[in-house]
Structure formats: structure tokens, C-alpha cells
């Protein structure tokens, strides 16, 4: 595949760009932040996403969706990132849909229509510690009735308390540290024994700490195979990772463009500060890092869409590189803005906070660089 967007993809980018800039720009984010919204996003905006066809972008056409791939989902995510548009798109329409695509028809019929309508929100309940360690999952599912009883705790479940359903990874066999023996469950938000504590994050997203105290689920709640959940989990996580990487390309590019504009207008010592070579070289270096990140994210997306054997390697490298480049962009952004960059009134600091969240989401750059090393045989 050529590493350039085709005509359809360019059209999608144009419409996503126009849509986010007019319906969900940074002022929209500020509005929901400042009102202390319990969800951290607008349900009306989520419905508008559905009207645009975004929510079902990865849902197969046979299930009523757009049947598109990671490249297209990434195009939407980049614009979300550029505008800091708050939405459940990454968790629900990307990660959860990727898992549900592997579920049976009854499960797909239960959840896809709500996602397509922009009414359903799904939380991803994977993390049990402060760092991303999916193979260390210890939450236990024991056989009970015709299904399982889930016991354990989850954290960093973004939009968990606003979700209609949680995808919970639990251990049906084996011990923490093993990839065999995991199973994925679709757990209804109203299930008895499920409790959540919502907590606001630095970027105003709301995440939940989840307690599972003997939550009974039927056999029809299982996504994929019992004990063989790692396959579904890996696909779901990789979709989330490459999606978060695409969103970081948007965050990083948004911050970079804002910074470059500032360099061209701010005057000190009777000169526009963009004339100073010390800043020019840093700006050019940053541009190169962001261009590299954009390239490897596109490469990872296209390999995932092809079902290529190296997709996993490139997704890990893409999450790592996008994280490092976006982080450089927001750090340089605040520094080059000087004092105004430290104020809440100016937007650059909001990008810095969003970057921090996205870097941590689905594994940070160091976690994924470590995976690259492992996959490369050292």
C-alpha cells in the first residue's frame, strides 16, 4: 500500500477536520471542563458523531457500520486530538468495537446498534495497577451457574462511570504473568456486585476505579473463547494503542502549529522570536519528530488493516514514537510560549495535560519500546 491517503481518505479527513473545528473545538472542551461535567464529555456531541458516521467507522458493513479500517479511525482521532474534543470515540468506537467484532452475533446485535446511534458508551476495564501490564491481570472469574463470578479490581477505566457496559478481562485459569487463561467479559453497568468510584484526571477526562465483588455473568457475556482471551485482548489493545497514537499525532501537531504561529508573532529584542536560530533549529527538529511519528502511525495502521504479521511490532513502535514526539511537542510548546504558556487561559497547557493522559493510556513509550526490543529478539 502506498503511504499516502487516497481520495476517499482525504475527503474523510476534510469532513472530520471541519466537524471537529466547528462542533468540538478547544472552547467546547473548556466549557465541559469548567462546568465540572460528571461524564467529561457531551452526549449530544456523541450523537453528532453518530450522525457523521464516525461511531460505526470500524463496525463491519454487515452489522450496519462503515466497515472501514484503522487508517480511517485514525483520521478522525487525529482531528479529535488537534481540537482536544472530548468523546468516548477511542474507547467505544475503536477499542471496544475491535473486541466486539470477534464476539458472536447475539453480542454484536446487542451492542452495535447503540454505538451506531451514538447512545452507547463502553468502558475498557483492563488495568489493575498504575502501569499498563495486561499479562499481569489477576482479577478472577470462577465458574458459577451457567457462567462465571468475577472478583477483583480495575482502574484507569476511562469514562467507566458513564458506560453502559464494561469489557472486563479476568483470569479463568493460570496465574498472573501468563497470557493463557484470560477471558474477556461484557459486564452490564447495573450488574449486582459492581461498584465504581469516578475520579477526574488532569486532562478533565473522568476515569473509574472499579470493584467487582462476585459479579455474576452468564455464558453469553463471554467475548471470544474461555481461557483464550489474550487473542481478543491483544487485538483490542492494539486498536486502542494505534488509536491513541493517532490522537497523539493530532495533539502534537495541534500544539506544534500553535507554537510555530506564536514564534512568528511574538516580539522580543525588537525582533520576532522565530528569527532566532536557537529556536528555529528546535522548531525544525520538532517538525521532523512529528513527521516521523505521523509516518510510523500510518505504517502501523496500514499493517493492521492488512492483517500483516509485523503489525504488532509497528503498533508498539508507533505508540512509543507518537508518545515521545507528542511529548516533545507539548514541552517545547510551553517553553517557547514562555510565561503565557503557564497560564490556564492559554490553550498550550491543555495540550500538555492531554498528552500526559494519552501517553499513559494503553502503555507508555517505555513499555512499548521494551516490547519492540523483545520482539526484535533482545
Amino acid at each position, binding site marked *: 500500500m502506498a503511504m499516502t491517503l487516497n481520495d476517499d481518505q482525504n475527503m474523510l479527513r476534510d469532513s472530520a477536520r471541519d466537524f471537529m473545528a466547528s462542533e468540538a473545538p478547544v472552547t467546547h472542551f473548556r466549557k465541559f471542563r469548567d462546568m465540572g461535567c460528571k461524564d467529561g464529555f457531551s452526549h449530544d456531541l456523541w450523537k453528532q458523531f453518530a450522525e457523521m458516521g464516525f461511531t460505526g467507522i470500524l463496525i463491519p458493513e454487515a452489522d450496519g457500520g462503515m466497515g472501514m479500517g484503522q487508517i480511517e479511525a485514525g483520521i478522525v482521532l487525529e482531528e479529535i486530538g488537534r481540537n482536544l474534543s472530548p468523546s468516548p470515540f477511542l474507547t467505544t468506537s475503536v477499542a471496544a468495537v475491535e473486541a466486539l467484532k470477534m464476539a458472536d452475533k447475539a453480542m454484536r446485535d446487542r451492542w452495535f446498534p447503540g454505538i451506531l446511534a451514538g447512545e452507547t458508551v463502553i468502558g475498557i476495564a483492563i488495568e489493575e495497577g498504575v502501569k499498563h501490564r495486561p499479562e499481569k491481570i489477576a482479577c478472577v472469574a470462577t465458574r458459577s451457574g451457567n457462567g462465571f463470578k468475577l472478583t477483583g479490581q480495575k482502574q484507569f477505566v476511562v469514562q467507566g462511570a458513564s458506560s453502559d457496559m464494561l469489557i472486563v478481562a479476568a483470569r479463568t485459569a493460570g496465574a498472573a504473568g501468563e497470557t493463557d487463561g484470560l477471558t474477556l467479559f461484557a459486564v452490564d453497568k447495573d450488574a449486582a456486585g459492581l461498584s465504581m468510584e469516578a475520579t477526574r484526571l488532569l486532562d478533565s477526562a473522568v476515569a473509574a476505579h472499579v470493584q467487582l465483588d462476585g459479579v455474576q455473568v452468564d455464558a453469553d457475556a463471554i467475548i471470544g473463547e474461555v481461557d483464550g482471551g489474550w487473542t481478543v485482548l491483544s487485538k483490542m489493545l492494539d486498536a486502542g494503542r494505534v488509536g491513541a497514537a493517532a490522537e497523539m499525532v493530532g495533539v502534537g501537531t495541534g500544539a506544534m502549529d500553535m507554537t510555530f504561529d506564536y514564534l512568528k508573532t511574538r516580539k522580543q529584542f525588537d525582533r520576532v522570536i522565530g528569527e532566532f536560530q536557537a529556536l*528555529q533549529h528546535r522548531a525544525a*527538529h520538532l517538525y521532523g519528530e512529528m513527521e516521523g511519528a505521523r509516518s510510523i502511525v500510518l505504517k502501523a495502521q496500514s499493517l493492521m488493516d492488512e492483517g500483516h504479521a509485523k503489525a504488532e511490532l509497528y503498533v508498539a513502535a508507533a505508540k512509543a514514537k507518537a508518545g515521545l514526539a507528542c511529548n516533545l511537542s507539548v514541552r517545547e510548546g510551553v517553553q517557547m510560549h514562555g510565561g503565557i504558556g503557564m497560564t490556564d487561559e492559554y490553550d498550550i497547557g491543555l495540550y500538555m495535560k492531554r498528552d500526559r493522559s494519552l501517553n499513559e493510556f494503553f502503555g507508555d513509550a517505555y513499555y512499548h519500546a521494551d516490547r519492540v526490543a523483545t520482539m526484535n529478539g533482545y
Partner: protein
Amino acid sequence: MSDLETFRTEARAWLEENCPAEMRTPAKGDDDVCWGGRNFVFQSEAQKLWLERCVAKGYTVPDWPKAYGGAGLSPQETKILRQEMAKLGCRSPLNSFGIWMLGPALLKFGTEEQKVHYMGQIARGEIRWCQGYSEPGSGSDLVSMQTFGEDKGDHWVVNGQKIWTSYADKADWIFCLVRTDKANKYHGISFLLFDMETAGVTTKPIKLISGNSPFCETFFDNVVVPKDQVVGEINRGWDVAKYLLGHEREMISGMGGDGGVTSIGAAMKATLSEEPVLRAQMALFDVDNLTFRAHGERFMDEWKTGKAHPAYSNLMKYVGTELNKKRNELVMSIGGSQALEWESERANGGSKARNWLRTKANSIEGGTSEVMLNVVSKRILEMPGG
């Protein structure tokens, strides 16, 4: 099957049949590389055979037109051919500055006669070229160069000195920037071609920190160059030079082999398991390495479809050369004391150390990293100031 898939099948079959087994093993050093030219001595029958077969097929320069010795392949076909060569581990049949640099410039600026004559010679590996650009006082500020060609009607008489002329002592001909109008800085330079055996041309190798001498000083003492050996218009050689430098930088983004799974061998990987901090550095390097390959691929696809910014090759040159220096720093660290050995067979004649030192020039030659950053900042980012 699409046309491209048909082409892939055919190309693979041709390579399977025509590339000798010996030419499917990695080259061990510069001696194994076929540079062609009047004085080239083939290292083996296989090397000679591989060149001859590729010449006959147009595969030394697959994307050049057939009339000039190429195979007339489209960019997509060329990419497929290179992928198939990489899969089989086929060596490049012919390396040359003629292919990489002069050819593309001739294709854009040369006369039909020049294209047929010079490009044909390059494609067949008959003439080895060197590049005469830098002068002792003109490095990054190349346009200040002083080598002068005095107009004598139907020819110039050239006097002056070039430096950092790669393989000038082994080359047959030179493409050379010569000042032909002292009054006009940018529009007073011509792009001349001449034989290194012409009376008055002498070369002197420069010994580098690596102990090797890939570069020379080249002296011109009343060298006669006929006027039909100018490429492009007289006094407009700077346009040719700039185009060619862009092409040189573009080539750098095409570096790399099999899609970049990893950049070090098994023995070095074993060392890393005992060195957690070094392993972490290597892991971050591999992230950048995979990134650069994807970046290069994207750049080439955009370049070929005319979507890339004209100055983008400057960015690729900066990123690629800095990355290569970093790679060699890590290789030296992983190699430890054995990588310090300068001459032993155990250390392959000090190849790691010599390569490491050689790469320090990557971000100096062909435009320094600092100049690249200036260009990116001014032309792509449109930062203000002169």
C-alpha cells in the same frame, strides 16, 4: 492478478534465474561492492556475470528510460523490484555516483546527446564518476567557490582546487562546479563534465580519522574543457547543483534493507540482556529506526506523486544521518573492547571502529545538519528572517 502482481512474479522469477548464488550473500566490505569504471577489477566471475545480466536487462538503473540504458520501470515497479531483491538478499549489481547523482541531473538538464552518451555509459558501468563541489574555503557556504574556468572561445581553461572529492583517485570522469563568471555569485557557476585523465588534473587522497581515504584533494592546473561538456546553461550550474543535492538527500531516505526488524546481530543481542540501560537505549533507537524507515517510505511515495515539499529531502537528510551516527555509537558500546581493536581479524580489521568514525561525516557532507535545520525552518516552516 493485477499488473503489478504479475510484474512481481516475473521480477522474482528473473532474479531467481539470473542472480548468482554468491551475489545473494551480504557484501563483506567495500571491496565486494561493484563500482564499475575503466579500472575496476571484478572480485569474482559471479560479480561480473551479475553486472552483465543486469546491464542487459536495464536493471542497473531500472527506473531510467530504456533509451538511456534503463528498464523504463514505473516508480511502483521499481519499488517492487527492490523489495524482491531485498527478499532474495541480492546485492546491488552496480553502485555509482553516476547512478545516484549525475544521471538524475542529466535526465533533467542534459541534451539528448548527453543523455544517450553519458547515461548509457553509467548504466553499463563503463565510467566511474566523482563529484567536484566543495573547496577548502567553501564548505557549507558552497556558492563562494573560486575554481575558475577562463573562456577561450570553444573551451574553458580551468584552474583551482576541490576537496572532499569522493574516490577521485579511482574515478574516470568528474562532474564539477566551475566559476565561469566572477561578477555573478549564484549565476556565475557552470556544471562541467571532464575526464580525470585530462592534462593538469591531479589527485591526493586525504587520510581520515577512520584510517581510510575515501576522499581526495583534486587540483586543476590549466585543464582544458570543451564547451559541449557543460550540463544545462552556462552560468546556471547552481540550479543543477541544487537539484542534484536534493536528489542526494532523497537517496539517503531510501537507505535500509529488509523493512528493519532490527539493526544488530545475534551476538550483540546477547550482550544487551546483561546491560539493561544499554538495552533500553537500543530499544529507543529501534523505535526511531522503524520510524525512519516508515518515514522514508512515506516521503518517497509523496515525492513520486509530487506531494512532498521541495525542501523535504533536507529534513530526511538531517534525520537519517543523525540516526546513523546514533546507531554506530550504540554498536561501539555493545561491541565493548573488541570494537576498539583497530587491525585484528577478530575485529574484522577494525571495521566497527572505522565505520563509527566514518559516520561522523554523515552530518557534515552534503550539507551539515545545522544547514539542513536552517533550510527546513525557513523553507518548510516559513520562519522569518534572512
